[in-house]
Each structure stands twice: as structure tokens, then as C-alpha cells.
């Protein structure tokens, strides 16, 4: 029905378990939509068998940061599925997540991916690595890190690759060289769209030669029949996407059990398979092993820890006068 009533208000009497139905409100980032929508029916079935209760989902998909802010600002999601821990942190900071979500299985992460490059079929420009993005005349697409969580991963990857390269050459991390590298790539950027998806769309309609994006995004497009080449750079970053129960909301709606179960389910085999099919690198060890061959390993894969963790990245890269700002302002 209509639009009355507050968001996330579960149907009454759902707390008890056993009978009736329960409504789970999911606030997720857009990229996860296809996978989640495949997973939900599976969970519904399982839950029904287990408790005899019907689970209904109310889903909202938006850019990760937007979603985080919406939840922090009062959107009563029971489960948050976001593209990076920083966004879950936002929700936590708003006092909505009380448990230590990182201590869960897989450190709270449900999927992995890496930042890769996509080119037109046949890789006409012969792009092999991030270095090639600095060549004059190469038109590069990545989204705007101000608005897109994905873009932050992309920038992190390029910046980190620069850092790694300097470390490989000189033995020490040279932030200045990394910054120069990032700036050189940035000069070739044709457009910074507001989200990874928008960037992908632009690429799909003929804009640019190379897109820097999540591996799973590219794989999903290729699975749809679009012809791209995936170029895995020699040095790139490992992406980890978290999911967490928003305690305050789940308790308020009395759907704690289902919410916990759902998050657990996301870590489970069935869900991980589905994620993998959608192009995510599974996090569960057994599934990961099974899919190992499907996902090429970059020469040097680093994680956010290499850059000092999200807090450090936010303060050095994305602060108001940080590296990213200086790159844009051309300083």
C-alpha cells in the first residue's frame, strides 16, 4: 500500500518468532543490488523453514555514502550493506550500531573485489597498467570521490600503486611521487561522474578509453554480454565491503533475530556463491578457493591498511586540503 507510516516500521507482533511475518529493512549500496536481490529469496526460504516466519524485505539502494547518511539521519534500516567500512563507521558514530561489528566473521566484510581497468574490446590502446593511463591522449574515466565510495577505492588504488612503485624503486614510500602519479592520471580524466554506475554508463555509451572501477562491476557487465577487456593492474588495492546489523533499529522493530540471521547468511556459502557469480570475490574461504581460478591475482595486491587505514586515508587524501584536493587544484 500507500506511503503512510514510518520507514522500517515492522509489522507488529513480529518479534516473537515462530508465527506471522517479519519485515527487514535493508539499506544497501547500489552496486550490491543484483546480488542482494538474488540472495533474499534464498534467505526467505531458509528462514521460513527454520522458524516458520515469513520475511518481507524493504530495500533501498543508493550510493554508499548517501545510504550511510540516510541511515544515520533517521532512515530506519535494520541491516546496512555498504561499500566500505567508513560508511558503516558513520552509522556507528550516529550511535545506531552498538555491537563491535568488526569482530564478526570475516571482520564484518561480506565481499571483496579489486580495482581494475576496463577497456574497449581488444584493448585497442594496449593498456596494461596504471602507468599507461598517464599517456597523452588516453581518456580515463573514474567517478568523483566526493560523491562516490567506489571512486575513493579507485583513487586509493592509483595512489597506492604510485606509492608501491616508489617503495619498490627507492625502498621507501614516497607520498610526493604517488601524488605526482595520481595527478598525471587525473590530467587524462575525461569525466568524473557522480557514481561508479554513472561512470560505467558513460563508458558504455562510448565515452573514454579506459574506466577505472570495481572488478565486479566490469565482470557483471561482461556477463550481460557487453564486450570489454578487464585489465588487472600490477599493483592494486583490495576492496572489502561490510555489512552490519543496525542494532538500534533492529531492536526497535523487534527483528533482531532475523537481522542477525540475514547478516550471517550473507557470510554463508549460498550467498557467497551468488556474490561470486555477480563478480565479487567471495570472502568465505571455501567459496574463495573454489572461485580462485576465475579471478586473476595482481602482482602486488595491497589493502587499505597499506595506506594506513581508512582514518589515515581520509585525513591525508580526502581532507579539505589533502592530496586529492591538491591534485584537483593542480598544485
Amino acid at each position, binding site marked *: 500500500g500507500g506511503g503512510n507510516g514510518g520507514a522500517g516500521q515492522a509489522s507488529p507482533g513480529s518479534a516473537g518468532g515462530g508465527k506471522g511475518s517479519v519485515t527487514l529493512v535493508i539499506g544497501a549500496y547500489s552496486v550490491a543490488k543484483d546480488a542482494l536481490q538474488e540472495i533474499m529469496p534464498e534467505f526467505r526460504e531458509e528462514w521460513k523453514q527454520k522458524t516458520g516466519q515469513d520475511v518481507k524485505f524493504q530495500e533501498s539502494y543508493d550510493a554508499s555514502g548517501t545510504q550511510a547518511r540516510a541511515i544515520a539521519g533517521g532512515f530506519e534500516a535494520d541491516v546496512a550493506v555498504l561499500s566500505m567500512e567508513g560508511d558503516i563507521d558513520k552509522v556507528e558514530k550516529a550511535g545506531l550500531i552498538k555491537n563491535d561489528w568488526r569482530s564478526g566473521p570475516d571482520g564484518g566484510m561480506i565481499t571483496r573485489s579489486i580495482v581494475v581497468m576496463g577497456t574497449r574490446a581488444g584493448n585497442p590502446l594496449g593498456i596494461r597498467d596504471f602507468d599507461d593511463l598517464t599517456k597523452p591522449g588516453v581518456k580515463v574515466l573514474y567517478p568523483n570521490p566526493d560523491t562516490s565510495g567506489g571512486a575513493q577505492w579507485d583513487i586509493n588504488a592509483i595512489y597506492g600503486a604510485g606509492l608501491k612503485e616508489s617503495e619498490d624503486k627507492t625502498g621507501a614510500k614516497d607520498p610526493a611521487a604517488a601524488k605526482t602519479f595520481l595527478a598525471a592520471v587525473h590530467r587524462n580524466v575525461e569525466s568524473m561522474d557522480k557514481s561508479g554506475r554513472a561512470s560505467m*554508463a558513460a563508458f558504455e555509451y562510448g565515452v573514454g578509453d579506459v574506466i577505472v572501477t570495481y572488478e565486479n562491476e566490469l565482470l557483471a557487465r561482461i556477463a550481460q554480454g557487453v564486450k570489454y577487456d578487464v585489465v588487472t593492474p600490477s599493483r592494486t588495492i583490495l576492496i572489502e565491503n561490510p555489512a552490519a546489523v543496525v542494532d538500534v533499529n533492529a531492536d526497535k522493530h523487534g527483528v533482531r533475530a532475523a537481522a542477525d540471521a540475514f547478516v550471517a547468511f550473507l557470510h554463508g556459502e549460498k550467498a557467497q556463491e551468488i556474490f561470486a557469480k555477480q563478480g565479487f570475490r567471495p570472502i568465505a574461504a571455501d567459496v574463495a578457493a573454489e572461485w580462485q581460478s576465475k579471478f586473476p591475482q595482481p602482482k602486488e595486491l595491497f589493502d587499505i591498511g597499506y595506506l594506513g587505514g581508512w582514518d589515515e586515508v581520509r585525513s591525508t587524501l580526502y581532507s579539505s586540503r589533502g592530496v586529492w584536493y591538491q591534485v584537483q587544484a593542480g598544485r
Partner: protein
Amino acid sequence: MTNMLQNRWWSWGFRSAILLYFILLIVFPIIGIYGQSLTNGWAALVDNLTEPIAWKSVLLTAKLALFATIINILIGTMAGWVLIRYRFPGRSLLNSMVDLPFALPTAVVGLMMLLLLGPRSEVGHWADSLGFTILFHEPAIVVAMVFVTFPFVIRAVQPLLEEMDASEEEAAYTLGASRAKTFFRVILPAMVPGIMSGAMLAFSRALAEFGAVVLVAGNIPGRTLVASVYIYGQIESDNPAGAAAVSVLLLTFSFLVLWLVSYVQSRRTGR
């Protein structure tokens, strides 16, 4: 007497209702934005505004919005005129299409422009061969702005033309004025309030348009980043004060322009 009292109460009630609505719905959120811009104090506001990326985006937006508005004034006046004064097959279809740009979701609009102006389109090719790119450059932004503000001038001009008294026009003819002259000296000035009304709306809307622009603008700071996208970025990167600061700049600018226009107009017609 009860009748009179009733009337007084009614009119008083209406007045308060309107004013209240106006204040609550319009003035309040706007004041809210001003307040928001000051959450971190004046210094922060000044900082946010002197930020080159910020003011460059505002300048760019104002410039392009002005362009778009001028284009819309021209084609809007023409289309409004043609749709009201001439009878020709297809007229009502055209008239019904006027509001399309509003009804179409901006996401689709942006996408269409991407398709129509992009490198794979005829237009894109043609522009490329002439040595400039439309997409992700200023022309695309202007086209997007023109598109999303297209109905304003037309719709503001039309009812005016319908209500206009024919005799002024006739008087001009008898004084020897050609149709063109009559249009420019007699009819157009009468249309000016409508054109202005429409143009102001178009200008404001163009200043703030996001959805359609963001897909085709390129959003490169200092070059193709428009204010609304900058604002969006600031919000997304958890700097609502910075977003509000730029908004405040646009709002103040807009307000001043609007005030000036209404002042000049009232001076010009003595009303």
C-alpha cells in the same frame, strides 16, 4: 453585520494561512540553509567560499545558466508566440510537448543526452570533426540547462498573450508600424513581465539543476564542475556546511538578481 465579520475573519484567516505557508515552506528551509552554512562560524563560511573550486564552480554555473536563460528567452518567446498566435496542424501536439522536460526523470534526460551528444552519436561525430567536443564540456551543460528549463518562458508568455488586448496592436498598425516593429515595440513589452517571470525561473532552475547536468557535465573541478554537483559532492563527503555555503552564495545571488529585476520592472512601468 455577521456577514461582514465573517468576511473579515475569512480574509484575515486566508492572509495568515498564506503567509504562514509561505514562511514555513519557503522561508524556513532557506533560512535553514543560511544557518547551516554558519554551523562552523563565519571564518569557516569565508573559507568555504574562498575555496577556488567552490567559487569557480559558482562562476561557471552562473555563466552557463545565463547563457541557457538567454537561449530560452529567445526560443521560448518565439515558441510561446507561435503556439498562441498561429493556427497550424500539429499545434496542439507541440503545445502538449512543452512540459516534457519536466516530466522526464532527469536520470533519463542525462542518459539521452549522453546518447545523443556522445562520441557515438552523429552530433558528437560532427562536432568532433569540427574540432570540439560537446559532451563533458560547456556546450553539453548549456544544452542540459536549456532542456530542463525549456517550458518556463513559453508557459509564462502564453497566458499573457491570451489575455492581451488586441487594440494596442491595431493602434500600432494604424500608426504605420510594420508587424515586426509592432511586435518589438508594442507586443513584446507587454510580454516582458511573462518573459521575465519565465526567465527568472529558468535562471534559478538552471543554477541549481543537478540530475541532468551531472551526467553530461564532466564534473572536473575548475573546468566543468557546476555548483550543484559541487554541493552534492560536499554533502556526500560530509561537509554540509561547505555545501550550504555555496548554496547560500547561489541563493543570495539569485535573490539579488530577482530583487533587481522586480525593482527595475516596477520603475519602468510606474506600477
